[in-house]
């Protein structure tokens, strides 16, 4: 799909979101794509999806084409979109609250994310993939041992790979507990209105809640101490993804 051909003829900004094909249980099995697409929806920015070229300029997914310009990394994309379309969902927050929001986002995307990744690819050996996605990426379908090996070396470089399974799962649980304790009874992380960090948080939590079948955190979500996180994910889904069922492959018909 040639990006240049899709620039708006009337001069309006055109956003193409490039991501993996839809999942069975969530619109994307990647937390960062789900984050970015949720942001586009909250911010009311018109966009088109491209599922054919999911890997972007930094060798990662998702990425966007904005008026023909290719941009990688979900956070850099989000910040560029925010600037281009003059959307600041956090303008009402104090600088202290914005700082706290950033800290929670980093915990989700740079720490809890690795626990999710390790569980999905190493402890579970990638066996959950066919359960959560129909149209698996070529590498996942035919070269799973290579993908697993690559994740193992990434995790080792990042540091989490040096810990035992029980240590890693405990770290993840501590992160989840922290998010749960901070969220409390609020509707969204920082209060009554959803902001950018909620997109990131939802992206990661959705993977753990819905795409980690058999994960030891499940009982904590359904009946235990993390039940407010389940409520939070349901709220985000209900509010910003009324068409959730149609954004799955196969689509869910009620």
């Amino acid at each position, binding site marked *: 799909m040639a990006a240049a051909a899709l620039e708006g003829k009337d001069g309006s900004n055109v956003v193409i979101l490039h991501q993996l094909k839809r999942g069975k249980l969530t619109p994307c099995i990647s937390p960062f794509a789900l984050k970015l697409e949720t942001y586009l929806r909250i911010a009311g920015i018109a966009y088109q999806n491209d599922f054919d070229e999911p890997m972007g300029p930094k060798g990662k997914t998702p990425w966007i084409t904005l008026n023909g310009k290719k941009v990688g990394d979900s956070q850099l994309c989000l910040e560029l979109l925010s600037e281009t379309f003059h959307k600041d969902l956090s303008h009402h927050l104090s600088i202290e609250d914005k700082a706290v929001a950033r800290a929670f986002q*980093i915990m989700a995307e740079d720490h809890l994310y690795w626990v999710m990744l390790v569980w999905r690819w190493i402890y579970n050996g990638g066996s959950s993939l066919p359960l959560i996605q129909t149209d698996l990426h070529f590498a996942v379908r035919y070269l799973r041992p290579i993908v697993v090996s690559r994740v193992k070396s990434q995790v080792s*470089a990042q540091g989490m790979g040096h810990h035992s399974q029980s240590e890693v799962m405990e770290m993840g649980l501590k992160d989840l507990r922290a998010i749960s304790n901070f969220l409390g009874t609020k509707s969204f992380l920082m209060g009554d209105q959803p902001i950018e960090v909620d997109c990131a948080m939802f992206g990661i939590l959705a993977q753990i809640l819905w795409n980690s079948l058999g994960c030891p955190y499940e009982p904590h979500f359904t009946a235990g101490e993390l039940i407010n996180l389940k409520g939070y994910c349901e709220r985000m889904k209900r509010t910003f993804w009324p068409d959730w069922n149609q954004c799955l492959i196969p689509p869910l018909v009620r």
Partner: protein
Amino acid sequence: MAGCWKKPNVSAGKDVVLLHQLDRGVFTPSISPFPLKLETYLRMANIPYENDFKDPMGPKGKTPWMTLNGEDFSDSQLCLELLASTFGKDFSSHLTEAERAIGRTFQIMAEEHLYWVVVLWRWVYTKGKTLWAIQMNFPAPLRFIMPIFVRRMKGQASAQGMGRHSQEEVIEMGMKDLRAMSAYLGIKPYFMGDTPTEMDCAMFGMLAMIVWCMPGSPFEQHMKGEFINLKDFCERMKDQFWPDWNQCLLPPRV
């Protein structure tokens, strides 16, 4: 390096921690944030300890590590938590659960995100050259095999993710983290209020690197300007827990 590890022949007394770490630095007692964090915690908690500088790399191939009553433990955070429970120390008991959650997020921002900015600066952008300025006792042959370490750290940073960004993007991410930390600290003496907690040791460990061990970095200037409260926080931690700071440098300062 982990494969060449041999149990050292030193031991401290009963209930005395033997802390294994790198040799003292020129400007800071350690050029690594994690030994500085752990040693600061030992001092804050008044836990008796001795240093061993001869075997800095432990069973997980990382530094610091500790021996307590004949048993070895790795990872500064796991060590800290073990010490807290063994010696019955809790500096965060007065915090609410939400506050403790916030404390955790800022610690993770420092140790899992800002940390990589420091790694990239030290090893990739300055090609390891600042090491000669901040630590004396490197064996001369290291100068020749430095490119190997540089390549290794580059690979680690790339696997973790931050290494895939441009230098400009990475520096900006570091600035955003420091801005968030500065905003949250505000005019408080310590991150969580009037008394220092465990996470202040972690924050001090990382921020000390930026304040004192990154000569010529863009952050250095900001520490005297926009982030001056972070520098003041470091001076405060240093004055309170390291009255002998100058004697804990190599060479010792008179």
